[in-house]
Every structure is written in C-alpha cells, then in structure tokens.
C-alpha cells in the first residue's frame, strides 16, 4: 500500500458558511495503480487529492503515506513530502513563464534527491525538439506535457493529476492521457487522476466515484483501455 486513508473529513469555513468537502473517506492505493477519481463539481475530489498531495490537511481522520501520517504532519514535513515523493499535474499547467521548457523541469530536478535528467524526462513526453522554448511559445497540450515531465522528473512515488485535460481540446487531451498512462506503465509510478469526464475512467485500474464528500462507488476495470481506445 502506498496510501491508506481512514475516515478523512474536511470542513472549510467560507466566511460564515461551513462547507463540508469530505465527509469520511476510506481509501487504499496500491503501488503502481492507476486510479481515476470521478465526480461532479463539489464532490470533494480535489480536496481529497490536495490532502493526498500534502497541500492541505484533513479536519479529522488519518492519511498514511507509507508510515507517515499526512494528517498530522507539519508545514515543513509536507513540503519535503511534496518535494521528494509527489508529482503534480494541474489543469492550468502552472509552468513558470520566465523559464524555458528544460529549465522548468530543471527547477524540480535541482531540488529532488534522485531525479532523472530534464532531457530524459522531456524525452518521455516527446518534447525533445522543444527544449529551449518558453511556455508562451508552446501549445496547451505541449505545456501540459512539460508539466508532466516536470512532475515525473523527480521519480515520484505518486503522480497526482487534477483535471489534466480540462483546458485542452479533444485530440491534445488524448495525447496527454496517453503520456500519463505510459508513465504509469513504464515507470510503475502510481497515478491518481481527477476528472469529471467519465470516458477517462476506462483507462484506470480502479475508478472511485465521489459524491457529496463520500466515495459513492468503486469500479474495478479488468481490462484497462488505452487512450486511443476511449472517446468522448
């Protein structure tokens, strides 16, 4: 088990209103698994991902990453966790506009304990010809592939993707999904992908359906589809 969560709950105070984002989630993720978190807006999937990624802490419950409890970890410990073990891919890529493709990846490899070379990571996402371009010179799909290269270059234990295709067109979205699946398969990196696109569920080992802050259902795919085989 890479991740074991028990009774995870999260309540936000938005001004005078209390928002219950997670209401008791139990979860286990095995090494090398491809997990899709499926659910509508407000179902709590991002909150869950943020807690698993060490960006947020739960109001109650435990979230064990190997033998560390992310729920009680301090700011410095969470930062180290993100730095050494987690790779993030976001809807808006979050690249640094003033750094080139290679430098955006180097930014992470320079602080990770045993990274691959930036060129190697960029080769895995097929961006070798674009090494010295700035983000503003790339298409959205290319930018997202840079973000993936940046996420995997540190050889993370887990790759967390929050709506990775949310800002992309159909064809580009499929290219990006293919890259994520390949990383999961070839490097054995555990991958957790958030989406509200049900079609993507077919690519996962397991699909966790979230609704109202709870896991409403779990689907196990006996046969994983490739990115080329899915359509929406």
């Amino acid at each position: 088990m890479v991740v074991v969560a028990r009774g995870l709950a999260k309540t936000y105070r938005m001004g005078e209103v209390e928002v219950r984002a997670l209401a008791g989630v139990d979860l286990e993720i095995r090494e090398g698994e491809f997990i899709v978190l499926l659910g509508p807006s407000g179902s709590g999937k991002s909150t869950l991902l943020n807690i698993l990624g060490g960006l947020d802490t739960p109001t109650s419950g435990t979230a064990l990453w190997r033998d560390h409890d992310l729920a009680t970890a301090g700011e410095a410990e969470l930062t180290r966790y993100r730095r050494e073990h987690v790779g993030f891919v976001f809807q808006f890529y979050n690249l640094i506009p003033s750094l080139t493709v290679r430098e955006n990846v180097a930014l992470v490899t320079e602080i990770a304990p045993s990274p691959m070379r930036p060129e190697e990571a960029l080769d895995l996402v097929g961006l070798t010809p674009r090494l010295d371009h700035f983000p503003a010179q790339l298409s959205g799909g290319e930018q997202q592939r840079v973000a993936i290269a940046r996420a995997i270059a540190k050889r993370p234990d887990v790759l967390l993707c929050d709506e990775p295709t949310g800002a992309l067109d159909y064809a580009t979205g499929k290219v990006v999904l293919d890259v994520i699946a390949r990383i999961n398969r070839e490097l054995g990196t555990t991958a957790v992908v958030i989406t509200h696109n049900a079609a993507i569920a077919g690519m996962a080992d397991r699909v966790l359906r979230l609704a109202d802050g709870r896991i409403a259902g779990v689907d196990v795919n006996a046969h994983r589809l490739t990115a080329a085989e899915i359509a929406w």
Partner: protein
Amino acid sequence: MKAIDRKLVRDLAQMKAQAVTIALVIACGVAALVAALATYHSLRRSQEAFYVESHFADVFASIKRAPLALAPRIEAIAGLAAVELRVVHDVTLDVPGAAAPPVGRMISLPDRGLPLLNRLHLRAGRWPEDGRDEEVIVSEGFAMGHGLVPGDTLRALVNGRYQPLTVVGIALSPEYVFAIRGGEPLPDDRQFGILWVPRAGLAAAYDMTGAFNDLVAALAPGASEGAVIAALDTLLTPYGSLGAYGRAEQMSHRFIEDEIRQQGVMAQTMPPVFLLVAAFLLNVVLARIVAAQREQIAALKSLGYDNRTVALHFLKFVLAIATLGLVVGLALGAWLGALMTGNYVNFFRLPAMHFVLPPSVPLVAALVTLVAAGGAAIASVRSVVRLAPAEAMRPPAPRTFRRTFLERAGPLARIGTRARFVIRNLAGRPLRALVTIVGIALALPVTILGLFWVDALDHMIDVQFNAVERGDATIAFAEGVDAGVVHEIARLPGVRLAEGYRAVPVRLSAGHRDYRTAIVGLDRQGTLRRLFDDRLRQVAIPAEGLVLTDRLAERLGVRPGDAISVAVLEGDRPVREVVLAATVAEMIGLNAYMDVHALHRLMHEGDVVTAVAVAVDPAMADALYVRLKTFPRVATVAVKAAALDSFRRTTMSFVLVFTGILTAFAVVIAIGVVYNNARIALAERAWELASLRVLGFTRGEVAGMLFAELAIELALALPLGLWLGHEFVAWLVEISATELFSIPPVIAPRSYAIAALIVVAAAMASAWIVRRRIDRLDLVGVLKTRE
C-alpha cells in the same frame, strides 16, 4: 455614497499598508517643505519684530576717537533719521568659575534716557542708576553661559586694573542676536559677552570723555544708504573711521540672513526628492491595480460607466493617498517647523521666537502634492481609458521572456534555474527594476545629508583648529605694540611657543567691488598659523604681495597677478596697490594675509604686532591665562579649547535634531520603496510562487527567490545612492555657501556606511513583513486559476 466610491474605499482598505507607506513618503516631502518654509517665515518674522521693536540701526561705524562736538554735523546729514554716538571697548573679564578669561564688549549707555537705536530688550533686572558706574547690563547668552543673575558681580580688566562690576540687568540687543566677535571663527556665549555700562565711567576709563568711537544710525525712509555712508566717511575719516557700513555687513545680521536663506534653500531642495519618490510609487502601485482590475474595469464599462467616471475612479484613488499624505505632512511639518524654530533659541538671541505658518505655505504644499500625484496617475488612467471592454475581458497577453545576454555568453551561462528565474524577472521589466533601484537609491542622499553635517563640522574644526590655527590661545592688544612683547610672552611659564601677528584694518577694492577686512601679517617662518589650498596642501606665504581666501578673491573678481587697491583704515591711512600673489582655501570668513615684513613696509612702520598666538603646556594653561589677564596692554585673550567646547555643545545638539529628522525621513523612503515593490512583486508572482510551493519548494526558498530580486536591486541601489549622496551634498553645499562660511562637502566613510546600513535595515524590515504574506500563500487556490 455611490457604489463605485464604496469600491474605492474598500480597495484602499484592502491595501492600507501600501497606501499608508506611500502617504508617509508624501508626508515627509510635505513636512520638509512646510517645516523649512515655516522656519523661514518664523525666523524672518521674529527677526523683523525685534528689529522694529528695538529700532535696529541701518548704518554702523567704528572710529578711533571723535569729539562729541561733531554731533550736530552728523545729525545734519541728509537721510539720517537718528544717530547714537557711543563708546565701545573690548576688555578681558574675570568671571567667577571661568577658567579661560572671556572677552567683554563694553558699550556705553546714554547719559540721559535710554538708547534711541539698538534698544535693549530687558529680560531681567533693571537699568543702571545714574552715577552708578559699576552697574552693568549683561547680554543674555553670556549671562546664561555663566549663570549670572542680577546682583552677581564680575570684574573687567580696564587699563590693566580690575574694576568690579555688578550685574543689574540681563538684556537682548538686535546688534548681537548672533553674538560673534569680528575675526573670531565661531560664536561663543561663554567666551564673548556684551556689557552695557553707563557712559561716564567707560568714557573716563578710555579717555573718551566728550568723545565717541562708535556710531550707529538709522536712515530716514527712502534715504540712500550709500549716500549716508559716504557723508559719514567724509566726516569721520579724519578721526580714524574704519569706514561706515550698512546692515548687510553687520555680523549678527549677516549670520541670521544666511541662516534664513539656508532655510529657503532647504525648502527648494528636499521636498522634490520625496515627491519624486512618492510619484514613482503611486505610479507603480496604480499601474498594478489597473492591471489586476482589468476585468472589473471591463465590467464597469460594459455596465455603461463612461470613461470619465472610470478614469476619475482611479484618479480618486491616487488623490485619496495624496490627501492623506498632505494632511499628515502639514501636521508633521508644522510640528517640525516649531521644533526647528525652537532650536534656534540657543543660536539667535531674540526676545521671542514667533512661530508663523502663513496660509500660503499649506496652499503651496497642497498644490505641489496634487501636481506630483496627478502626474503619477496619468499613464495608468490613460490606459484605463484606452481599454476596450471586450479586450479587458480577455486575459492580458503573456509577457515574453528571453534568455538574457549575460546568460548566453557571460559567466552566468552555468547558473542554476532559480537564479535564472530571478534574473529573467529583473531583465523582463528593466524599466521597473531601474526605477526601483533609483527609488531605493534616493533614500541614501537624504540620510547622508543628515549625517554629513557632523562630518563637515568635524572637518571644519579639524582644519581650522588643528591645521590652520595651531595655537592654543590668541592674545590681542588694544593697539599695535612693539614686537618685543612676543619674546616677553614667550618667556612666561607654560608658553611653549609664541608668534606675533600684525592685523591692519583695510578696505580692499578691485574695479567697482570692495570689501572691508583686515590684512593679517604672518611670519613666514611661523608655524602657529598656516595657510592651505583647497586640497589641504600648505601654501607658503610669498615674500611680497597679498594672499586672499579664494571666496574673497572671487568676491573681488581678482586672480593671482591682478592688482588690488588696499586702503588702510588706520594711522596715516595710506592707499596702495598690491598684487594678489596667491589664494588659499579657508572655510570660515573672508581673510587676507601678507608676509609681516611686507606689511610693515606697506605701512611704513617698524616691528609692530597686534596679537600674539601661543602654544601652551596644558598642565600650566590655567595659571598662564590668569597671568595673561593682568599682562600689560592686553585687551583680550581668546582660548581655543573654550571656544571649541562651546561650539560643539550648541551646534551638535542642533545638528543632531536635523540628522534625526532626515534619518527618519530616509527610513520612510526606503520602507516605502522596498515594501511597495515587494508587495507588487509578490502580487505579480503569487501564482508562480504558489506553484513553486506546490512543487515542493519551501517557504524560505520561495521567499529567497522573491527577495533575491530585491537584494540585487538593493545591491545596485546602494552604490548609486552613495554616489547621489555625494553629488547632492556637493551641490547643496555649493548653493548654500555663504560669504562667511563655506561648508566643506566632506562625508566620512562612517556616514556612508551608516546610511547604507539604515537603508538595508529598512529594506530587511519591509522584506520581513512581506515574508509573512509569502507564508500564507494560497496553494490550493492557485491551482484552480489561470494566471
């Protein structure tokens, strides 16, 4: 309140720290302007009030000895409204508790009634009673310096004998608002006092019965000063007049005028620095707000708000901050003005310091502030107007970055990615970086200007009293005496070295310009008084010809080699042509020197001295000064250490207040610039920095990347600021130089270091405040928004 104005109030509240820091910079500029102008007007008003109250004379003259019978002829001079014929004599005093003998200037009071001109303002006690020759009124500064009150006694050395005197009154005189003795470099309330005494006794002691040796006169309205002076000179020259002169040459008056002028200079030079910085900050902050509120602007416009209303909305934002700064600045300026005016009480002995703030001052301050603020807003407001609603709804075009020249070629080719981040951000906005650097740099001249006075005064004291005047005391005689006295004094116990000088009162003229001063004849082998050029290289006294201080040469419009007409104002009053042999640099006074033998030849006289400078064994100094008090024919003994001590005491407290104010101002500038830049940098980079935090960068690393940029700007700003400080001081010194003083533009390395440290500390304090915001960056939120 309209909804759009409510938005303004909320926007301001949202960024109150930035608004306040900018308002404070404006406040400093306004305060500097108001304080300087208030001090200017207050000094002017207080001076004028006293001059009017006391009937301060317009024309002055010293004569060797003239009969009182001349009075009707003097009074008949056309244009002369009133005249006072007095006996004035400098004597050595013996005041209980004073180690070095002070000099007292005894001025006669009329036999009957009170003086018509230069009336005394009695602070305590009473006027001397008729026939009581031992009763005196003492000047307030001297009385305070020695703790004298009515009823106390002191002794004056009159004609070699001690004469007891009783203090009956303490008074102020318009003639001695700034009590400095002619020929002395510094004022000294402990070493120089004015004693007003009944005429009869003083006249009897100095063979002036039925005669006078000093004249003060008032001009009739509309009378020509030049004509009256010419008439007086014609009348009095046969009686040994040193030449009548107007108020402009009266010592005390000149000092006050110089000081008032100085305040005028301050009012013109300091405020622009602050308002420039404030305008820059307003400009940058407003540009940032407009950028951040693009979509809101578009929304307002699409809702039907016209350009004028939207533009005015942002202009109001600037005006609100400017108004806050103006109000705080006016209050602060009035307070500082009162503080500075009050500080002059120790310098200028006036019956009352009237603090005045003419209504024109706040009006000028308001106008200047609004112009600066309005100017700062123009660019941003224009961009608001230009923005089409549809265009504003779209995100702005991404900034383009390139690899900088340095990274491609230079030593930076191999730097880490984080360093690149920092450098590209700097290079990506070169204008912003430049303006920030200049803004920070401007804090330094302000600090340096405050600190520099101490250095300049130290330097002046060091040069004047360690290099130029190396004697410990100067013994002056009432008139020229045989040079043999130098050897007599040299033999006194405690005297290590004695050198005689010959001072001759003269009027120097070249073309239509002239100046009254004294030529000091120096022994070319002498070591107690030396001359230097502007680079502190010693200048040998030429065997022939005149040596002038460079400011005097400039005033006369002469250069070495030019002929100067020297009209001697004593003895046979010869007029001769002398060639200017060299110029020297002296910071105090306009002086003239000659080889003593050449001077004797010019005067057709033998070996005569008027003063003796002595180097003294410190262990025996006190005994020596007591001995000198009774030495024959000695008029005064001026002790250097006493003068210096007193000068430091009065001046340094004055300077420290000034330094404190300017340092506080500089801190406000530094914090204003650094804090606002850090906040804007943070606002612009929040998305990037939060992204970096998500990627696993620690708070410290992220803060480091933001502050590295500031650190580089600071590192570039420091040398620029130090250089600006040097230039600013040099320029200020040049425009504020007076005839009596030229402040050396000397800045000690220590002052540069302190100025830099203050700015660095202010920058670090600002960074620390911003650092706490970095710690609170919203990591989750940043992932859900596009930049």
